[in-house]
């Protein structure tokens, strides 16, 4: 077995000591100090860069905000143009409807007149036929007037009036927001305390939080009042009134009310615009329906006139047969009488035709 080597502690210690004596501590210290300077320098530069970047960032964001605002205003102008177009469309369609309805109604009246005359013609034919026939004959000569109702639509003036009403209510609500801030002033002087203790020190330079009691209240109010409130000064009471209004409390209350007013007003406008759009659709469909009815009435009128004229002609031709004995009439004249009866039945049927 080989001998264990003895561990020489003393030799190790001497080696370490010699090694350490060779280390250039001052040199390392010097290098550390230089490195520290470099780091400080760079941190300083970085700090400046961050500050600069923050400044640049806020400038950029501000610029973007201005661009957005300009874009919003332009969009608002575009909206107004489109609303004007919608209003124009609404008024135009109401006019179209009324025109179409008037034309249809006029034809309806003419048809009524024509049908009334047709009744007279039927009466005349009835007299002739009854003068020849052995048993009295009747023809259906009653008719009902064609009923139509002119519809009433909401025009742009009415919509404008509703929008204006909504706008004035929004403005009234916004005004009340400032009053809400003022109202808080009457009821909540302690709100002032919170604001002052959170945000600052008194003008004496002593942190308000360290003051107590009446001293704290006066310092807070004086600080927030800034020493120059509304003209004429006003001291503590004025400070009370204006603290809540012209400070974070007032801005929060006013801001909250304004935001909800903006949203509600926008909702009302959207609802009005949707109703306006639906109204235009309704009017257009009604106009189309009225035009169809107008065409149908016109056809009926033309047909009624033609049949009545024709019937009058045949009636006149057959007047020579008035009061004659049927059995002594020629076959040809009997056929003519037959067609006269048929045409009169046709006339009666026309009186009862309705417009679907």
């Amino acid at each position, binding site marked *: 077995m080989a001998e264990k080597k003895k561990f020489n502690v003393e030799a190790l210690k001497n080696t370490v000591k010699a090694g350490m004596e060779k280390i250039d501590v001052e040199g390392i210290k010097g290098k550390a100090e230089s490195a520290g300077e470099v780091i400080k320098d760079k941190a300083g530069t970085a700090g400046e860069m961050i500050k600069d970047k*923050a400044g640049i960032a806020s*400038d950029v964001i501000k610029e973007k905000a201005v661009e*957005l*605002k300009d874009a*919003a205003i332009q969009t608002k102008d575009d*909206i*107004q143009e489109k609303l004007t177009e*919608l209003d124009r469309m609404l008024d135009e369609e109401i006019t179209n409807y009324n025109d179409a309805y008037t034309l249809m109604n006029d034809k309806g009246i003419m048809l009524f007149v024509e049908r009334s005359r047709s009744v007279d013609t039927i009466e005349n034919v009835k007299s002739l036929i009854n003068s*020849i*026939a052995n048993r009295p*004959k009747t023809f259906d000569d009653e008719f009902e007037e064609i009923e139509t109702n002119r519809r009433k639509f909401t025009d742009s003036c009415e919509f404008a009036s509703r929008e*204006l009403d909504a706008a*004035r*209510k929004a*403005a*009234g609500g*916004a*005004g009340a927001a400032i009053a*809400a801030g*003022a*109202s808080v*002033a*009457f009821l909540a002087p302690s*709100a002032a305390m919170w*604001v002052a203790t959170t*945000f600052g020190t008194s003008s004496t330079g002593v942190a308000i939080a360290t003051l107590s009691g009446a001293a704290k209240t006066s310092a807070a109010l004086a600080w927030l009042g800034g020493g120059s409130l509304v*003209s004429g000064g006003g001291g503590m*009471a004025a400070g009370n*009134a*204006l603290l809540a*209004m012209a400070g*974070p*409390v007032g801005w*929060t209350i*006013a801001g909250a009310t*304004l*935001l*909800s*007013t903006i949203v*509600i*007003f926008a*909702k009302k406008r959207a609802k009005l*615009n949707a109703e306006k*759009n639906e109204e235009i659709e309704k009017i257009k469909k009604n106009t*189309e329906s009225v*035009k169809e009815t107008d065409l149908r009435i016109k056809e009926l009128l*033309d047909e009624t006139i033609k049949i009545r004229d*024709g019937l009058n002609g045949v009636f006149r031709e057959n007047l020579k047969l008035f009061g004659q004995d*049927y*059995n002594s009439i020629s*076959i040809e004249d009997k*056929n003519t009488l*037959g*067609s*006269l*009866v*048929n*045409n009169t*039945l046709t006339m009666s*049927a026309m009186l009862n035709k309705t417009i679907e």
Partner: protein
Amino acid sequence: MSEKSLIKEITMEYIKSFPVYDEIKKYMEMVGQLQEAICIASSGNDDKTMLLIRIGTVLSLSIAGKMGTNGKMPEEFEREDWEDIAQAVLEYGVLMDGEKYTEFVFELYARYIEKCVEINKKELSISAQEEIKALADELRDLTRSLNKGQFSEADYVDRCLWVCFEAMIKLWASYGSGLLPEKLKKYGDLIPATADYAVQYARLKMYSKEKAILEEYLNNQEILTNELQAKLDVYIAELSGVSEQFNNLIKDAFDPNFRDKLMASVNLAKAAGVDEEIILDSEDKIDEFFN
């Protein structure tokens, strides 16, 4: 969502985001009641409620104004003070007509904004003061444009509401930036800039949505017009077809030269809807009718 719920939700969300919330929440009930009253007035057709809102507004502001000018609390007001207040309520709250009252509200905001800047000069940076005061001028420019007829009153109200809201946000966001040490001021500008960006973004989003909806309406109206015209054209064509046939039958029935007038009259009667039982279509039937 009902308007009442919407107004409460917006108010709560908005106010919760601000540090004054803890203090404000004590007064939320009162603010909530005010909001509800405004909401009811906005949604109803009740002019009386709106009148009460106006009276309440002018009354509150008149009292606050009195407190500011003479340094007295309301319980210390004298008869003369209350007479002044009553006169203001009558003139501004009751007698002023609709459009004038609307202008009055936004002039109030313009002055309020200016006063807020003045009172909080220490806490607002110079640039913030200028930007916020410019909003007061913007309100007045809008009023001038209204008076020149460049907007409708409704359009004016919408634009002014946004300017007022922008002012409240900027005041809040800028508050305290004036107290920062000089070397930190640049950081202070970031917050109001970001807040303003958010407001303008929200405004543009809302307007863009409104515009898109209107464009859709106008496009759909054009489509509907074309569809209805096509429908009418089809109806005209169908009616003409049927009518032509009937008119030919009328012509034959009354044509003196038509060969078989009896048959022509029979055909016409059938086409007109006469019961075939009673139509005289043969010599026998004619004889039976007259005998």
